[in-house]
């Protein structure tokens, strides 16, 4: 029953977007209840669909032709339905929270309209049944992030950050588009060669059709296609080297950051790789052709990003920036999972990665909303100016500590009790180890385990600096209202207990591959018997990080002033974010593209093509000719018009005289 109305999952928030945009001013809270009701509706339909298809391992598929052989359609399989539920649920909580958080902003209708569209676009990414619709929705997600990061567009920094987000992700989007071009051409050649028949119910860019055609696609081409798709994912999911936009994206309202980081944007990149995983999984065969296999690249980019971003998280002083680097790093883990677990356990990697994606969504949304609550209370983003907030903000403090535990992956191994992150992240680290055993390459594992230590240090540094010690500012802070704290408590419950769903989750997601490609997910390799130290290590580093931060930032047992100084080149490098903003915006953006290429183009255009050739050489010749004509004619410029008509008339007369006889 619910599945028949699956299109409403997207359409409800779209309708809410239009209504809020035009009627929001006349409604209470800027029309916030419209998107809230709409997204609640999306969540209910998603949940209802899940309950319908879960018992029967069914999928929902609806399709209609669109233009030029392409289609619009809906595909809800296990992969999609878990994402749909998470996105609509987390987005709903963030919307409710925003009623309180945004209550003083005069532009509320625009805010709620845009977040509603943002949610709709992301939901549309998830349930697309073809890669074109996926791409279109993906671009609309990018548009909404642009609008919302630049929500306070009168702030120059917000306008700049919005542009940066759009352009940097656009670099990825172009790669994604190039991948679609290449895929389309290959599919089309397969279809015209009649090696593969497309029924009336199949469309060229449908996932179903694509997956069926995988064995027929040239493996080298398949590698290029998947790497180009991954390029898109790098942009959207803030992976190195296209990560720079995400920390700057905090220029928008904190609720927008929560949406971007948890529900509606950055996960799209991971989802793209998960969605097209059968294609990635089919690529290793090309190793012999001298082309690296796509999963290896996914693993290395992800692993490196996990570590690289965590190092910057250590030194940031802006509470939202710490969390932003944390997101970049955690997305790296998800990519790492797809790459390494993909090589070890095949399609089960999707479940492992997605489980971390969803548990991360809960605790990262929670972290951002807690940060919002703190910022709301103290009026600053700088953790050096906070301190001692726990006494005044018990709910925020407690829920944020829970989220930090989840992020650090704290739990008790062997008896399997722990936070969501304990189950999801430790699984990834274990698979990275298995990958090392299998391939003799422990570099991804090293990335993962070192990043885990740094993660724990930076997140507890944040918590201890904000909530313990003496207050470092005079401002009177207070706990946030119920409309804001209740979503925190709900998310905290998920951050604590969602992990226990891991076995059922993995089982359910494993069916996805089978449903999509008709083959059973490769279940080779019984889980290796790992030494206890390997199982324990992720938790050990998590606890170690907590203790280090406790010692440094709470008990002040170590003097950090030597390390934390601009005299220290390493600290300076990290604080300047490896000079990424300088290299990206200043050197590549302004200096190279604008000052050198575009300006020299302008010079060529004006001085050479136009100035020299047209004006001087051709123009002067014409001018002299004109001087001559002027003697014959009146010399009034406007007579050129009559000359034309006269010219045509003369031609007619000449023609008549010459050929008139016939």
């Amino acid at each position, binding site marked *: 029953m619910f599945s028949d109305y699956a299109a409403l999952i997207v359409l409800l928030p779209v309708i809410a977007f239009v209504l809020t945009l035009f009627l929001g001013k006349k409604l209470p809270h800027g029309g916030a209840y419209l998107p809230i009701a709409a997204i609640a509706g999306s969540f209910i339909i998603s949940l209802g669909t899940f309950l319908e298809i879960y018992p029967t391992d069914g999928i929902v598929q609806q399709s209609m032709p669109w233009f030029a052989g392409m289609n619009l359609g809906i595909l809800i399989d296990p992969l999609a339905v878990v994402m749909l539920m998470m996105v609509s649920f987390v987005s709903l909580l963030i919307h409710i929270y925003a009623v309180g958080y945004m209550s003083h902003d005069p532009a509320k209708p625009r805010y709620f309209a845009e977040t509603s569209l943002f949610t709709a676009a992301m939901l549309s990414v998830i349930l697309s049944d073809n890669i074109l619709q996926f791409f279109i929705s993906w671009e609309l997600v990018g548009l909404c992030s642009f609008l919302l990061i630049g929500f306070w567009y009168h702030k120059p920094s917000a306008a700049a950050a919005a542009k940066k987000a759009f352009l940097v992700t*656009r670099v990825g989007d172009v790669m994604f588009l190039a991948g679609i071009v290449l895929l389309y051409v290959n599919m089309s050649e397969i279809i015209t060669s009649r090696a593969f028949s497309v029924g009336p119910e199949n469309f060229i860019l449908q996932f179903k059709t694509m997956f069926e055609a995988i064995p027929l696609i040239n493996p080298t081409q398949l590698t290029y296609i998947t790497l180009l798709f991954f390029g898109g994912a790098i942009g959207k999911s803030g992976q190195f080297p296209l990560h720079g936009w995400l920390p700057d994206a905090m220029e928008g309202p904190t609720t927008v950051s929560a949406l971007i980081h948890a529900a509606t944007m950055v996960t799209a990149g991971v989802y793209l790789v998960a969605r097209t995983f059968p294609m990635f999984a089919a690529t290793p065969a090309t190793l012999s052709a001298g082309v690296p296999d796509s999963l290896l690249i996914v693993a290395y980019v992800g692993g490196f990003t996990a570590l690289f971003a965590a190092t910057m998280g250590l030194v940031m002083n802006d509470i939202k920036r710490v969390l932003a680097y944390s997101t970049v790093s955690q997305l790296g883990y998800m990519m790492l999972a797809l790459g390494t677990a993909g090589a070890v356990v095949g399609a089960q990697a999707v479940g492992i990665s997605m489980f971390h994606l969803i548990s991360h969504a809960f605790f990262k949304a929670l972290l951002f909303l807690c940060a919002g609550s703190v910022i709301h209370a103290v009026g600053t983003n700088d953790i050096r100016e906070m301190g001692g907030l726990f006494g005044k903000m018990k709910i925020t403090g407690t829920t944020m500590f829970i989220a930090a535990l989840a992020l650090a992956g704290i739990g008790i191994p062997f008896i399997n009790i722990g936070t969501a992150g304990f189950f999801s992240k430790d699984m990834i680290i274990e698979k990275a180890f298995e990958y090392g055993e299998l391939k003799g390459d422990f570099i991804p594992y090293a990335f993962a385990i070192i990043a885990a230590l740094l993660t724990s240090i930076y997140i507890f540094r944040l918590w201890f600096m904000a909530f313990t010690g003496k207050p470092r500012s005079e401002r009177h802070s207070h706990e946030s209202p119920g409309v804001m704290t209740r979503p925190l408590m709900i998310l905290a419950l998920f951050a604590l207990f969602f992990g226990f769903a891991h076995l059922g989750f993995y089982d359910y997601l494993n069916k996805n591959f089978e449903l999509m490609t008709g083959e059973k997910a490769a279940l080779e390799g019984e889980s290796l018997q790992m030494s206890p130290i390997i199982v324990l290590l992720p938790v050990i580093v998590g606890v170690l990080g907590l203790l280090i931060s406790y010692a440094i930032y709470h008990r002040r047992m170590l003097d950090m002033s030597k390390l934390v100084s601009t005299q220290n080149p390493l600290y300076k490098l990290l604080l300047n974010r490896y000079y990424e903003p300088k290299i990206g915006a200043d050197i590549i953006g302004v200096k190279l593209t604008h000052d050198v290429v575009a300006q020299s183009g302008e010079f060529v255009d004006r001085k050479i093509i136009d100035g020299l050739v047209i004006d001087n050489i051709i123009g002067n010749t014409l001018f002299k000719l004109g001087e001559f004509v002027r003697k014959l004619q009146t010399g009034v410029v406007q007579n050129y018009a009559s000359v034309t008509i006269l010219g045509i008339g003369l031609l007619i007369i000449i023609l*008549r005289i010459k050929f008139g006889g016939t």
Partner: protein
Amino acid sequence: MAALISLMIAIPLLGAIITFLTRTREQARSIALLTSGLSLVISLILFSRFDSSISTIQFGESYPWIASLGVSLKFGLDGIGMPLVLLSNIVIPLTVLFAWGETKQANQFYGLILLELVGVLGVFTSLDFFVFYIFWEIVLIPMYFLISIWGGPRKDYSAIKFFIYTHVASLVMLLAIFSLYFNAWQVSGVPNFDMFYLLKNYSVIESPLLKDAIFLALLFGFLVKMPAVPFHTWLPDAHVEAPTAGSVILAALLLKMGGYGLFRVILPILPFSGSPGKLISLMAIIGVLSILYGTFLALAQRDLKKMVAYSSISHMGYVTLGAAALIPLSVSGAMFQQFSHGLITAVLFMSCGVIQHSAGTRIIHDLGGIAKHMPKLAFLMLAGFLASLGLPGMSGFIAEFLILVNSYFTLPTFVILALFGIVFTAGYHLWAMQRAVFGTYNEKLGHIHDGADYGIASMAILVLLIIFFGLNPNPVLTMMTTNANQLLNFVVLRGVIT
């Protein structure tokens, strides 16, 4: 009801004459809106009766004119012309509405706009090469006056440059038309200017050199109009000085005549030319060069309107590229790009016009934060800019997607080059928005006000159309595809591409 096409052309012609004779601005603009609106109604009737599944000429009309020379008034529509006729009839009434507040010599102003409509409708419907050429030239004259009377400080230079440049190109094209004409005459012994007849007889020309010369002369005529790099330098100057209405018509309709020529004239004769392979490469190079060159030049501009002018060059490059790829869907994509760009560029030039009017400047550096006082304009301008940078959900994306995907079959290297331009295209659009519209309000501008309601209304209608055709391109795309398929039959038959 026969003779709908000639009625559609006659009404704005009559309207133009009456408008010239009116004494008040009120009468002039009312008649202009009414007659262009009537013309729109007729084109909608034609559009609704159009059969998208056949590629032959529909609503054909033919009247004898100069029998001794084989000239006759032949009109008709197919999937190449119909969408552009619709576009012209959408853009002109909206331009009149946008320019509702014009005070200077209003009767002439609106009359010239109507004459432009007559000219472009004639070009898009004529099936006699001679008549086609007359309309092609007619279009120049009102535009010359629009620039030279209502233009900016350097209007004389720009108007003359526009006129001479495009006129020279037209004359080169005319020479080619005459060669075709005399050649056909020699073969059959009967003079006939019928367009399809002349194009069909292109293949009987014996000398490959002459064939290529004719081809290049025609191509030159069309590429200057589009305009394609390196024949584009008249365009930025013309736009900078032209009044907004002039710029809108120039970019939305006049440039489309060049693209129309590619589909109507160039593609049918291409397979029969002396060296089709080289000519295809030439077109592809010019297309991609225009895309990239236009993009980087747009990035360098300080004047918002000049930036939009260069963006037109870049977008029209897609038309050349799609046409050169010779794949049915790349050619349909190129046709759709023409239609889509007409709508989008109109919004962009109108935005520039509103800003110029309110803030007194279009220099990006001198603006800043104008969204604060011009929220409606900022909203519509952003929509137009997003459409222009190819945002999915809007018409430009469909066109560029079709062109890029399908051109890859035959011109992979060129597509890869064009893809590089996409990031920079987004770059100059958003950078301009960031500096001119967002950020802190530049207090030096004083207190500025939002665009007038009629201007905002016509921009809003265009934006809605852009979104409509972005979500559902089929109403015009289907007929384009039908004709593109038919056009490329010969290409395949001649083995020009495999």
